[in-house]
């Protein structure tokens, strides 16, 4: 069959900014797709608004558009580029939906563009509820029985047909209000009566309740010849009811007999064959735990998060194979790259198990509802490979960086058994597996926990094995036998010592096994390894066998994606690896995130898929014996390893461990600033509430409070009063008394950020970025402009000079990120990070300076001069680039959307234009803001900001917006001659602000408050309401000031090559 000859130029649609549910996995898939297309000699045009991605790199496509992913923009790209086809299945739901819209409108036909991967009919059959049901019915695949009813009698009759329990879901009530599970007719009458009353259209859906069933997934691939295979099966630890993205997942499925396994496998093949997908597809099933009954939950006719996991779990590159299929190849023509001898038309056999463990952001969103349900909440995930479930879950849990190295979580260890059981009986939360473990440890039986949670006994028994091992370790002498068994179960030396209270009697290094897709049946040369405690070290054999004489360098990755440490660090790690290869080194990657490009086994020369703790890393170093290691591109995860590695005598390439410490340690950093003559906002370190109050008074309010050693502004607040300080200190000291708290004077100035490269002598600033929001809003949540628009020559020069001083004083070899605040015409330093930062990919792309590439070369002795760069600030371009943060608030219930010193955004997108207004507009459109030129504006701001509101309100008013505000603000604005309607506060009874937001009259809300966070507060409730109603809510005065609805210029497209 081979390559279709009617395909020459392909448009690839990316997935846009990172949001919960659509993360780095699509960069991994997209990058693989682009590479596969280029390999075929096809011309590739790419559109994606997310700059922090590998797929938007120059080398990935012939033409790259970093533009908003809206229908209009994609149409224009098609008109300009005239591709003959569009690849629909590799850009997540965003890419699929856009493709579908383009096809449905007839746009593709009229422009003679073919849709590759999944045709409109396929997408329709999979995405449309009724069409999907009909299709499944046609091929005899059971769906979850459900029916829309309008009366209680109909509900009862239908329930009789399908049997209790049933779920009642009222139509059009937010968050499922008024729904519930009915176990008998009386309950159903109750619930459905209530549900019908609450539903604005008096409709409820009655659905068979399958909670407690097993959730099983299959990744399936089909080609146009009709060949079908399954790549991998996966089983959820949590039964149906928890989103698979929020569940611990094990691959392959472990509790299914061959009969059950083949039944569901065959169902998957039947489904993909009927849908006629050409490429990858994901099928999710619910399987009754006590019978062979099953139901199809969902089918995704595209590459998904699960397919990224399946690819990494098996070594089978789903995205690459799916792309080749989309352009005409068949499975039997595509080589299995892993063995080099066999073909892609087979099913991987595993000789290990894989566990995926989700990573949530609840450490940042302390007030968010932690309940897990049908809406995914995890921001990222880790994967661990082991020869047993126990080993894999132990690895997974320490990879998630939760501050634990076993399944024991302190708060549950200390909790009485009744309380734990109560938690288990309640709704599922993110820490359920730790609660279960604590219950087992306290002697609750597997049967009882199974009865409460419906988690399969198999998983519970495995966890119980860990409990027993820990008890055994604590009991009597720590023998070598015990030690070795604990190692095989995945315990670190320090964990073993802690449980046994004794020194380890010996030390055993891990050995490495290869992930080879075939369980050892064929000889493979995949440089993809995981650790075990056996005797044979395949990595060592591999290194000896493939010895090139090149020096080896290890690059440590950044682990799971979380708020504050996202895909940007993977971008940097990957670029470092590429440069290392170019420089003639063997590049070795260690990371544990299955969603990323760095963990694609052909990115580096070798990949170690393992946790990034000191002992895990020591083992890798023992096997690799590298020339040196790179820590500055893997975010805080890698930086954390520096001290340990330096102590072990490992060569840290780039900035030294001592200097990294000098930037992170408060006292040493203060000394350094003093030496350099650079001011920073005045601040002190305190331990107690009393001290804190005293210091705050001395500094004068507002002050900034945060624990020392933070990441992404974790637990940081701005205190406006003594009361705030007391409340905050109360929270912090209850958690970790030993951790000092930093109090700084809060300066409400302009925030400026610089990423610089330094070779120890010269330094280069590719660009200065200015934040729209004043200091106080976390830099990751600010709209950032390049080049800076409002800085005087003097300020600019000061920033360049301070950057020089800091880079040289810290003897930076490589990258450094510095944050400044410009306050009353003075420049202060807020933070220095001697490593890569979130803005490196963005600034590299907009300035065209390959920062990571240069930094890597400098680590190996090159100078900026050698590489052809001047010292100082790089000349600015004649365009403006704006980075706009993207949030996932609609996925996170009860999180206050007000921006502050704690980072909240999950991703970002880029707008590039000829001027600031163009760029900002594009950035906002790309970020999903639905910009309006008229409508209603609701204003509710704290007193200190009322004055500034006048100008903003005036602008909105002149454009034709109707203004609304609560009494204080309204009368203030009215006094200033801006006509404003008064609306009641929530406490003043209906109709109030919430009702107004509900009414549809409001299109924008400007909401700031002195205090936030607590979900019960009025301001937080209003902001949550605006999220529910998709009303654009501006929570910083500056964002409102710059919101470009005043401009509405014509967008222009710029290619970014």
């Amino acid at each position, binding site marked *: 069959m081979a390559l279709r000859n009617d395909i020459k130029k392909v448009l690839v649609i990316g997935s846009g900014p990172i949001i919960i549910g659509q993360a780095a996995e699509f960069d991994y898939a997209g990058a693989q797709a682009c590479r596969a297309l280029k390999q075929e000699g096809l011309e590739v045009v790419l559109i994606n608004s997310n700059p922090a991605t590998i797929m938007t790199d120059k080398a990935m496509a012939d033409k790259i558009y970093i533009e908003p992913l809206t229908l209009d923009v994609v149409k224009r790209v098609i008109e300009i580029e005239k591709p003959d086809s569009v690849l629909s299945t590799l850009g997540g739901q965003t890419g699929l939906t856009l493709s579908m819209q383009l096809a449905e409108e007839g746009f593709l036909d009229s422009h003679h563009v073919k849709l590759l991967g999944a045709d409109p009919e396929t997408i329709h059959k999979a995405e449309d509820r009724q069409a999907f049901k009909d299709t499944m019915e046609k091929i005899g695949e059971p769906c979850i029985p459900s029916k829309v009813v309008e009366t209680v009698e109909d509900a009862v009759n239908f329930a009789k047909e399908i049997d209790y329990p049933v779920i009642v879901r009222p139509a059009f009530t937010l968050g499922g209000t008024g729904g519930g599970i009915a176990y008998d007719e009386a309950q159903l009458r109750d619930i459905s009566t209530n549900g019908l009353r609450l539903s604005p259209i008096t409709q409820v859906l009655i659905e068979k309740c399958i909670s407690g069933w097993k959730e099983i997934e299959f990744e399936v691939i089909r080609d146009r010849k009709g060949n079908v295979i399954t790549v991998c099966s996966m089983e959820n630890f949590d039964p149906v009811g928890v989103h698979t993205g929020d569940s611990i997942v094990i691959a392959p499925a472990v509790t299914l007999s061959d009969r059950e396994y083949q039944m569901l496998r065959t169902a998957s093949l039947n489904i993909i064959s009927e849908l006629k997908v050409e490429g990858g597809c994901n099928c999710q099933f619910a399987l009754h735990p006590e019978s062979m009954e099953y139901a199809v939950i969902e089918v995704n006719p595209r590459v998904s998060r699960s397919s990224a996991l399946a690819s990494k779990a098996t070594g089978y590159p789903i995205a690459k194979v799916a792309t080749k299929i989309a352009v005409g190849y068949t499975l039997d023509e595509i080589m299995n790259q892993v063995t080099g001898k*066999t073909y892609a038309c087979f099913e991987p056999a595993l000789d290990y198990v894989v566990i995926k463990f989700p990573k949530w952001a609840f450490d940042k969103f302390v007030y968010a509802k932690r309940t897990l349900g049908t809406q995914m909440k995890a921001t990222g995930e880790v994967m661990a490979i082991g020869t047993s479930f126990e080993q894999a879950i132990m690895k997974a849990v320490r990879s998630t960086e939760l501050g634990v190295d076993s399944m024991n979580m302190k708060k549950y260890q200390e909790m009485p058994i009744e309380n734990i059981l109560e938690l288990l009986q309640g709704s599922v939360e993110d820490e359920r597996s730790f609660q279960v473990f604590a219950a087992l440890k306290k002697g609750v039986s597997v049967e009882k926990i199974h009865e409460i949670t419906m988690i399969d006994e198999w998983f519970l028994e495995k966890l119980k094995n*860990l409990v027993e091992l820990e008890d055994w370790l604590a009991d009597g002498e720590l023998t070598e036998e015990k030690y070795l068994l604990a190692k095989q179960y995945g315990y670190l030396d320090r964990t073993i010592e802690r449980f046994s209270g004794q020194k380890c009697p010996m030390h055993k290094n891990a050995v490495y096994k290869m992930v080879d897709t075939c369980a050892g049946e064929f000889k493979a040369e995949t440089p993809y390894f995981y650790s075990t405690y056996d005797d044979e070290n395949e990595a060592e054999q591999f290194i000896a066998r493939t010895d090139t004489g090149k020096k080896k360098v290890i690059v440590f990755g950044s682990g799971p994606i979380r708020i504050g440490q996202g895909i940007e660090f993977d971008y940097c790690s990957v670029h470092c690896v590429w440069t290392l290869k170019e420089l003639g080194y063997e590049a070795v990657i260690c990371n544990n995130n299955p969603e990323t490009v760095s963990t694609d086994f052909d990115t580096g020369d070798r990949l170690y898929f393992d946790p990034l703790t000191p002992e895990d890393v020591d083992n890798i170093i023992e096997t690799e014996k590298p020339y040196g290691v790179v820590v500055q591109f893997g975010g805080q995860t890698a930086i954390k390893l520096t001290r340990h590695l330096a102590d072990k005598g490992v060569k840290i390439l780039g900035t030294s461990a001592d200097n990294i410490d000098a930037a992170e340690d408060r006292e040493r950093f203060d000394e350094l600033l003093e030496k350099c003559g650079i001011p920073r906002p005045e601040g002190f370190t305190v331990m107690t509430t009393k001290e804190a109050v005293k210091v705050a008074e001395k500094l004068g309010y507002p002050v900034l409070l945060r624990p020392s050693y933070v990441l992404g502004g974790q637990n940081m607040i701005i205190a406006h009063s003594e009361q705030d300080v007391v409340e905050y200190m109360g929270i912090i000291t209850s958690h970790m008394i030993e951790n000092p708290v930093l109090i700084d004077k809060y300066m409400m100035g302009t925030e400026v950020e610089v990423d610089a490269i330094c070779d120890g002598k010269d330094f280069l600033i590719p660009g200065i970025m200015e934040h729209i929001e004043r200091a106080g809003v976390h830099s990751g949540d600010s709209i950032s402009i390049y080049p800076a628009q409002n800085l005087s020559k003097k300020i600019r020069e000061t920033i360049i000079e301070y950057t020089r001083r800091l880079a040289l004083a810290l003897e930076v070899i490589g990258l450094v990120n510095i944050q400044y605040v410009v306050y009353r015409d003075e420049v202060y330093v807020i933070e220095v990070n001697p490593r890569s930062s979130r803005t490196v990919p963005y600034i590299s792309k907009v300035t065209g300076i390959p920062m990571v590439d240069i930094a890597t070369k400098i680590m190996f002795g090159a100078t900026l001069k050698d590489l052809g760069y001047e010292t100082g600030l790089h000349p600015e371009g004649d365009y403006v680039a704006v980075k706009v943060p993207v949030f996932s608030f609609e996925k996170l219930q009860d999180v206050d959307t007000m921006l502050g010193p704690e980072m909240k955004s999950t991703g970002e997108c880029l707008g590039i234009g000829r001027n600031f207004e163009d760029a900002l507009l594009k950035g906002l459109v790309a970020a999903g803001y639905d910009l309006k030129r008229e409508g209603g504006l609701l204003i509710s701001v704290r007193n200190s900001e009322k004055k500034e509101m006048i100008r903003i309100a005036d602008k909105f008013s002149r454009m034709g917006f109707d203004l609304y505000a609560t009494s204080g603000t309204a009368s203030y604005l009215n006094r200033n001659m801006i006509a404003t309607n008064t609306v009641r506060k929530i406490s003043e009874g209906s109709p109030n602000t919430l009702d107004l937001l509900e009414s549809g009259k409001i299109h924008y809300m400007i909401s700031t408050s002195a205090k936030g966070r607590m979900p019960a507060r009025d301001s937080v409730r209003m902001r949550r309401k605006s999220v529910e109603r998709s009303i654009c809510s501006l929570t910083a005065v500056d964002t409102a000031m710059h919101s470009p609805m005043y401009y509405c210029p014509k967008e222009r497209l710029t290619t970014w090559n």
Partner: protein
Amino acid sequence: MALIRYASPAWLVLADGQIFRGKSFGATGTAIGEVVFTTSMTGYQETLTDPSYYGQIVTQTFPLIGNYGVNASDFESSKSYVNGYIVREWCDKPSNFRCEDTIENFLKQNQIIGLYHIDTRRLTRTLREAGVMNGAITTENPEENPETLENLLKQIRAYAVINAVESVTDSERHVYAPEEKKYQVVLFDFGYKRNIRQELVNRGCEVIVVPAQTSPEEIRELHPDGIMLSNGPGNPAENTQIIENLKEIAKLQIPIFGICLGHQLMALAHGAKTEKLKYGHRGANQPVIDLASGRTYVTSQNHGYAVVGDSLDPAIAEVSHINANDRTCEGVRYKKINAFTVQFHPEAHGGPLDTAYLFDEFISRMQENFRKEAE
């Protein structure tokens, strides 16, 4: 956990002198056999009771075995024919609604010596590089006494799987009736898997299971509508009498369908050769290309020997299926007689059900015969 703590040791001794020390499960003692590996991730029950494994020590490459326990309805024959069983880890607390017992109890009841807690990947890689090798599992320390080890090694090296079919075939006939009988099929029991019979019964066949040595005359007297040649163990060329019989049976012009050993015997009866593969095909993920349609199917396989495709006389038969990985012969269609055979297992159990359509083809061949007779 407690499991490993209290388990007694066991060893695997390979013909090349390598020793793997692990833990004992199942029966105790010493068992010698041909050590092979299977890459199936599910279906251990079906593997253990597949008579084709007669004389072999089977290693599971998937590390966690016994997760769903054992149940009587998933057995492929009445007992286990393996000589020994090696896993990395077995599950003493299985979980499945059909689970009746643990895998260890099953091994004990069947007197099968098991070994666990060894690096099965290292063993697999050894077998892949060196080819299948004889070996022994023993619960008596072979390293204690050099003389005992030497003796054991001698026995190991002298071991050969012989008279395999004779050892597994039932000496009596059995008849299995469908709900509604449409066809009558003779199933040659060379060590057949139950699901071959079941697939036929499900399609309306009355199945007469006959001993492997049943003569052409006896078959003729039965007047079957079709003949099914089953899977089975051992070196196919060893079965000279059966091969002779098949030459005659083929002449009866009754539709014949052969699976695995049945496929090999049929080829041998028609002048082709068989060869021993280096380490065989054992697993549920083997890709097979149907040369007529060009489609590739994922199949379940368990064989150490294969038909040499080139040795088929093109006037008599042609290769219909090949293995996508090593291009060996996976199926034959006969030109002058109404017969087709496959090396893989369309009956699955364990493994993919993707090629079950071959049973339908067998049925339609019988139907076609009815139609012709009617004319």
